[in-house]
């Protein structure tokens, strides 16, 4: 009997389940978000199917979205180390 004060999450099986489901949820949320954003960039008039050019646009959009996110995180990290403004770091 585990009485470490965590209550319900003392069950390791439940704990793991929660972590896995949370991760899946984060994934789903990002798919929702990227689909919405990339729809604006890639979709013209909805047709009878997704043509290959549009599909490629969506794939590129996902990749560039993640690249953008990583770029921003990296620059934020650098500027927090006292290197000044965002655009100053571009001269490296």
């Amino acid at each position, binding site marked *: 009997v585990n009485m470490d004060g965590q209550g319900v999450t003392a069950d390791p*099986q439940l704990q793991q*389940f929660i972590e896995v489901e949370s991760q899946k949820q984060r994934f789903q949320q990002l*798919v929702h978000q990227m689909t919405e954003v990339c729809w604006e960039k890639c979709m013209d008039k*909805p047709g009878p199917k997704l043509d290959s050019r549009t599909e490629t646009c969506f794939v590129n959009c996902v990749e560039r979205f993640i690249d953008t996110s990583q770029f921003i995180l990296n620059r934020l990290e650098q500027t927090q180390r006292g290197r000044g403004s965002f655009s100053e770091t571009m001269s490296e």
Partner: protein
Amino acid sequence: MDNFTSDFSSGVGSGKMDTGTIMEQVKVQIAVANAQELLQASNRPARMTDKCFKKCIGKPGGSLDNSEQKCIAMCMDRYMDAWNTVSRAYNSRLQRERARI
């Protein structure tokens, strides 16, 4: 379906049964939330509804005419196609990132 005690700390018999029930309920709730994400308005317009309204409805009339309805139906299918494409692309990217570590 023998025992419905809510003793989560036991880890034996009855405790495991409740864990399983909890898991099932959580999965159902997540599935419902996911569908709502696409369809229902929360504090901002629902994604699919919003996008298809924008693509298909010009000047709002007294009802949805046939061409508008056809457009919305096609738009829904294309939105799900897009969602699946994005899901696959994101999954590939995540796998590539993990392979690098």
